[in-house]
């Protein structure tokens, strides 16, 4: 989901693991919230590792100025 309006920082970034119900494989997604708790952005893809998920979030403004 692309941002609909200019991002209001600070954001709260959440990195969550999701386990596939059948295979049991864990994948990671990120979500960025505004301070009011509104979802501002979400990762389009699920990632195999948290590190990849963090890297993708960086592309979308996680911890950059």
């Amino acid at each position, binding site marked *: 989901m692309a941002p609909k309006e200019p991002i209001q920082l*600070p954001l709260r970034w959440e*990195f969550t*693991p999701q386990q596939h119900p059948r295979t049991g494989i*864990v994948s990671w997604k990120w979500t960025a919230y505004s301070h009011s708790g509104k979802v501002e952005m979400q990762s389009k893809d699920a990632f195999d*590792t*948290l*590190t990849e998920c*963090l890297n993708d979030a*960086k592309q979308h403004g996680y911890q950059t*100025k």
Partner: protein
Amino acid sequence: MIDPRLYQRMIEQARDYALFMLDPEGRIMSWNLGAERLKGYAADEIVGRHFSVFYTREALESGWPAHQLEVATVEGHFEDEGWRVRKDGSRFWANVVITALRDDDGKLLGFSKITRDLTERRLHEDALRQSEQRFRLLIDAVQDYAIFMLDPEGVVVSWNSGAERMKGYRRDEIVGKHFSHFFTEDDLAAGKPWEELAAARRTGRAEMEGWRVKKNGERFWARVVLTAVHDDQGRLRGYAKVTQDLSERRHTQDLQKAAKNVQEFIAMLAHELRNPLAPIKMAVEVMAKASSDPATCEAMRQTIDRQSAQLARIVDDMIDIARITRGNLVIEHAPVELGEVVRRAVETAAPAIAAGRHALEVEVATEGLVVHGDRDRLTQLLANLLNNAARYTPPGGRIWVRARSEDGHALLSVRDTGRGIEPQIIDRIFDMFVQGRSALERVGGGLGIGLALARRIAELHGGTLEAKSEGANRGSEFVLRVPLSQAPVRREAPPAEQRAALPRRILVVDDNVDAATTLDVLLRSLGHETRVAHEGMTALEIAREFRPQVILLDIGMPGLDGYEVARRLRAMNHGRTFRIVAITGWGQEADRLRSKEAGFDLHLVKPVDPGVLVSVLEQRNGATLH
């Protein structure tokens, strides 16, 4: 009106008082039954004799009987207590009242004398006095215990020599002062002295151990027994206080505890070292058997890479232990942006967080959270907290990282839904080698220094690191508080443009054949020409012929050590330039200084990162880095 004969009989027959009359000169004129019982004389033996026969020789020599009559004559009355003598020469303690008798014209007719035997009371008082004296001497002779009395308000009213020896106050310095003088400031603020009095008042006796303060400010560990003292009517008269100095015993216990911690640490260290070594050994065997399968070899290479990185972390931890123990952990001082610290720490701890499948929330205030300090150490601090949160939270938990500003300070917190911290150890978790549970219950390894190191780093930044937990299985939160800085953050220069590696002639010297061989293989794979020596003399011979541009030289070798080899290499330098690089396990400042003095250009500590080695080999000049 009563018959005077009745009075006469009353006097004559009184048994417990000697009642008799003296003439104006002191001669005995009458005698009663009590006098006979008390003094042993029959009336016909004593009447007419002078009353001084009842007095001791000392009293007679001082003229005491005459003095008594003089006073009674002048003042009408004289009362005395003292030893008197019976007919058989034995003594008794007497209370004597002599009253002058006068006629209506005031003429002195004589004296009445009433004597009571108080020997029993006197003996009792003497016994009590002697007992008190013996007790006082006993108390005062006790050197190993401070024994003293407090009044009901806690003011010191007595002081023995043991108290003076233990606490340093002389009797005249402390009697009259409140016993709260002996308490620490923290205990005073917590109201401990008054709590102790209340406990003793309530239950009759209070017993406790704690820090107490001597006159010179020094602390000692004391065992104290406070006993309430009541009188016959049950009124509180004060407290008896007995204090024993247990500092030595406490010190011994601390040493035993420290020794136990070190033993546990060594056992844990062996365990932690074995953990990465086992997969490395396994990976090497797999590679030997499946050398033709690139995918397997790559997987094994990655295993070795990961596990050797873990070994390197353990060694780094041990170096930090040494620094903390010796108090020489130092930090850099530069403006550091906490947002970057958070990002780096999260990346470092990502494998542990991912392994626990924990959800992670990161929230960093956008306003400049800049502190003055050491970026790498702060990252290490936060990564330690995150790793702990990941390790001590059951799978599928949640971890929060938050950074914000408050009152000129940056607040960085890590909270989790983990197993929490038991209240009884929350004060000890920042001690070295403490992990909260026994070694068998340990989760996820580690040397148990993470929090000790984290708190030390916080302190070196002028900050604090505190732990909070509502108890077991209630999660925990660690809060770092450091002063904010106004200085702008220096951005790192972008990395220098990669240059193609220049092939060099490199001599590798290491008595560890495996270490030398792997380094040789790595250097050859990078296109360099190499020679290998496993001891100093051979290295010097090869250097003479091979003319290396770079010598990678181990220091700890049998025979000629690296320092001596470096000196001889420098001595045989005939105008040629070459760089000598120490590759050693010794990484203390003193080691670096010594290698520099021996002629080394550079000091690298094992395990050397291949990237660092490549960078070193690319440097054309003889720049040194010690």
